[in-house]
């Protein structure tokens, strides 16, 4: 049984392996950064994450918008990947 399943899946597994193996680590870095940038871009499309009046009275500052912190974290993360790749 085990052998039959292996013989059925092996050709597909080999094709997948050849595909990913053809991508060099340098291009892979680009893919990683792309994921981080894509998440940051998605965060920007969300509504402003302001506190409600009863939670934070007073003037609204841009740092009260939670999206700013998310983008900052993603930016730091992207820099880390560029440095340590």
């Amino acid at each position, binding site marked *: 049984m*085990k*052998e039959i*399943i*292996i013989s059925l*899946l*092996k050709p597909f*597994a080999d094709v997948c*392996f050849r595909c*990913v*193996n053809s*991508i*060099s*680590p340098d291009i*892979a*870095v680009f*893919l*990683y950064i792309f*994921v*981080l940038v894509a*998440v940051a871009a*998605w*965060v920007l499309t*969300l509504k402003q*994450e302001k*506190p*409600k009046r009863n*939670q934070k009275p007073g003037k609204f500052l841009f740092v009260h918008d*939670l*999206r700013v*912190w*998310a983008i900052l*974290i*993603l930016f*730091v*993360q992207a820099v*880390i*990947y560029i440095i*340590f*790749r």
Partner: protein
Amino acid sequence: MQRLAAIDISIVLLYLIGLLIAGYLLGKKQKTDKDYFLGGRKLKWPMVGISMVMSDIGALEIVGIAGLAYTSGFSMANYDWIGCIPAMIVAAFIFIPFYWRSGVFTIPEYLGRRYNQTVRSLVALFWGLFMIANLGIFLWTSAKTLNILVGWPIYASILATAFVIGFYTFAGGLRAVVFTDTIQYFILVLGSVIIIVLAFMKVGGISGLVSTVEEIGGPGRKDFFHLILPADTPHPLSWSAILFGLAFVLSPAYWIGNQAIVQRNLGTSSERDAKKSVLFGCFLKLSIPFLIVIPGLVGFALFPNLEKGDDVYPTMLRELLPPGLAGLVFAGFLAALMSSADSYLNSASTIWTMDIYKQYIKPNASSEHLFKVGKSLTLLFIIMAVLLAPMTDRFPGVFSLFITLLSIIQGPIFAILLLGMLWKRANGQGAVAGLIFGVTTSSTLFWIKDGIFKIEDPALYVAWWSFTTALITTIIISLLTRPKPADSLKGLVYTTKA
């Protein structure tokens, strides 16, 4: 063999007694299931953020990730970076507020409302069993380290750790878990910083580390300092396994679908606080690889001939630290262990109480009754974990075992969770089929792994394929069967309002 001195053991004992007292005091005023399982929904967001991270980086991570960093190198940092950050941010803005608004106790409870009770029971069963098995792994990891450092027999160590964790989780519930996690985080950071500074002093700084690894590392460690490894690397952490298996499946599944992680977010007092807690956890995550991966790298330069990678952290603790500091760092290590174990213990008891007991045994149980059942189950699970702990020794590495267990169930559960939240057409029949087919796929792939994968430990690839098959199966079966009435989906799918 140098072991902990009397002063170190005193520090550790003092710390353990402190935890017992904290658990007792925090649990005194609790009366209902909401108090016990969700901290009365009064938890502070910074503490919840810290607690999330601490539940994730248990001793298992410290021993296991430092151990894998010892053999595979800096690429282990991916587990805390690309393997956490994007998923946590998506969780913060979409999924966590969604759970918070729906007012559920558990993720199976959400799935039960979204699909049907069969899905709820299956997921509760998978998670419940996974959590109890993990508790056994946590206890074994701590016992091995106590055995190396203090010389206590392994079974005595298992019982001692189980007693402390069991007591404060039993007595204090989620509030005690979050409170102790916060203290434990600061002890862990202090301990790790001390060990890193001493290790770097001994190896000759960063340049000393690089030159030593180049000298003794050999071809197996040519990518030791790289985050991104080629797809044909013999290590389990190729760029493709990390991106597809970890970043796209296991990580979101973990931060969005793991009850032990999500439960504390549900205990915050507002939706905004729930979001803030996740973002704060995310911010802390940026620093975690420096605290736990670096010791594994420096450990290789200092002790290159260890039999198992998992031995590197306890060995560094034993060999590098002077009396007094060793006790403090070891307390930090115990802290990390307990922070994971307590979360899993509390969450296992929550799932079995709310999704199994309340659903099948006593549907009309009062809040006070469920509170008592939750406490009794906490006690039962810690006993079961003590009995299961020795089985861990049959596996090559603790972190690999954890990821293997995780990769069997996480992919399929994440697939149905994702479809359930984002696609109105997904229905109960599709979810049951997807869950069963996904878990069958992951089990089969582990069974035949030697025949089709080119690496020894393909857990990340298995997670990807089990997720994909569960996703496709759920879509196909849902399209072939009758959809759920639109009215019953209000507030349960992202695009619908309650």
